[in-house]
């Protein structure tokens, strides 16, 4: 029973012994520490990389190459005066930073952090005589868990903005909720494409399906769901160009304007932690997670590193690529406006991901029923194009009507 609740892990089947419990505890601790350190390094990485993109040097006074910069920030913020504004809702004001931080850590629990994928081991490694996955938990609804966590992460931001009791944070909070609701749908629908191809919800299962580059979901689902997922994930993270929630130029600091000291540090931490988690999730869903890169029958091998650890290295490398992409976004793209953000979400991403999902589903039905794949694809594509044409026409009519009677909404 406990196995069913906590995780699907072979070592938790049958009689539960002390060793597996200890391993679970160690894993929890390890994930927590790894998450924290990764976030610290992520902040430094972002500041260094963006400095490089802007012909600057970046932090270099705190520790070698400024690597301790985040630590200095953290210590400084911890030893700074704290304040709860008079007009704030005190309980919610105190609660909000934790509501932002906890989901960031929780989502990390379902990411496969490594494993041995050679010789058909399927990611299982042997620790102290126990077979286990390098993953804190693998609930049967793994991916849905990530979706659920990312949807409750917005509470921290909303409540922070609302409870501050002043106007700019409130505007930030309202923006945050609308943005979250809009992009959650696109995120879920592009996830649907992955689930359709993988046939499982468990993250470990999804990783195991992607044994070679040809099987990576980015190829198997046809690239479009990946693009939509990447955009929607950026929006969920409130990172540029979707950082309307903070939008320093418009809303001063957005939801966190009134926060100082350690509470602000928690928001800061949560934001970067979420970035790391989301990158890891993208890698898990579309790029084979800790699977080594393999084309056909040849699998790349990192020399001198035992196979059990190699998975972690691959994961790290892949995640690093996405962290870099997020920094890149921040350095280049201007910020969206509120209505453009909504337009992108509702008029492009959601129809796009829905259409692609239906195309994949139709192909699958066609394959099961033994129809000609090309014909099925063509017919579905035609239907979808027709539907999109109707959508465009509807938008046009609506715009004309709006201009005619000057409605504003």
């Amino acid at each position: 029973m406990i196995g069913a609740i906590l995780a699907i892990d072979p070592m938790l089947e049958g009689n539960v012994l002390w060793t597996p419990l200890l391993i679970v505890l160690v894993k929890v601790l390890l994930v927590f520490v790894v998450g924290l350190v990764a976030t610290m390094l992520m902040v430094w990485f972002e500041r260094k990389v963006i400095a490089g993109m802007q012909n600057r040097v970046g932090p270099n006074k705190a520790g070698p190459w400024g690597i301790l910069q985040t630590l200095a920030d953290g210590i400084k913020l911890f030893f700074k005066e704290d304040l709860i504004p008079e007009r704030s809702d005190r309980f919610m004001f105190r609660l909000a930073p934790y509501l932002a931080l906890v989901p960031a850590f929780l989502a990390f629990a379902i990411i496969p952090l490594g494993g041995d994928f050679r010789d058909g081991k399927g990611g299982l490694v042997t620790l102290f005589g126990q077979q286990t996955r390098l993953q804190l938990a693998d609930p049967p609804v793994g991916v849905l868990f990530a979706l659920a966590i990312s949807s409750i992460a917005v509470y921290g931001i909303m409540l922070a903005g609302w409870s501050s009791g002043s106007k700019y944070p409130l505007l930030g909070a309202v923006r945050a909720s609308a943005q979250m609701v809009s992009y959650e749908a696109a995120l879920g629908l592009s996830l649907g494409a992955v689930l359709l191809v993988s046939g499982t919800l468990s993250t470990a299962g999804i990783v195991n399906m992607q044994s070679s580059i040809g099987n990576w979901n980015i190829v198997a689902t046809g690239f479009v769901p990946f693009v939509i997922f990447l955009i929607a994930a950026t929006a969920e993270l409130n990172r540029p160009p979707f950082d309307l929630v903070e939008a320093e130029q418009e809303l001063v600091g957005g939801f966190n304007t009134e926060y100082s000291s350690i509470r602000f540090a928690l928001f800061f931490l949560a934001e970067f932690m979420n970035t790391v988690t989301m990158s890891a999730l993208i890698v898990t869903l579309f790029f084979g997670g800790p699977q080594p890169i393999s084309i056909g029958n040849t699998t790349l091998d990192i020399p001198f590193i035992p196979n059990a650890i190699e998975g972690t290295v691959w994961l790290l490398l892949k995640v690093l690529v996405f962290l870099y992409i997020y920094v890149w976004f921040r350095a280049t793209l201007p910020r969206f406006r509120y209505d453009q953000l909504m337009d992108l979400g509702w008029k492009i991403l959601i129809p796009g991901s829905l259409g692609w999902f239906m195309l994949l589903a139709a192909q699958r039905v066609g394959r099961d029923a033994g129809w000609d794949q090309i014909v099925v694809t063509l017919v579905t594509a035609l239907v979808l194009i027709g539907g999109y044409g109707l959508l465009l026409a509807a938008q046009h009519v609506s715009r004309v009507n709006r201009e005619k009677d000057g409605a504003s909404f």
Partner: protein
Amino acid sequence: MSLMFSLAEPTSTWYLVLSAVLFGIGTIGVMVRRNPLIMFMCIELMLNAVNLSFVALSSQIANIDGQVVVFFVLVVAAAEVVVGLGIIVSIMRRRTTLTVDDMSGLKG
């Protein structure tokens, strides 16, 4: 550790009683509160009580249909909230206070 497993297992009756209590709280809330938003939340409480009893009974009588019903209830609840909040927003456009006592007329 094994000691913990040997303790009394809650039967589905426990869950059903809990859901009855939850339903009662929801009912009281709908009757007592005057803020339509909170009344809405109390209706959600009642729906959740029913959901809980469905799932509990589903596992007791070993029939998956209970869970199917819960799935549909979730969808209907979403639709209901969308419409309900829409009504509240459009009422609030015309009035300044938000209590059900002031909403006696049918036209705004």
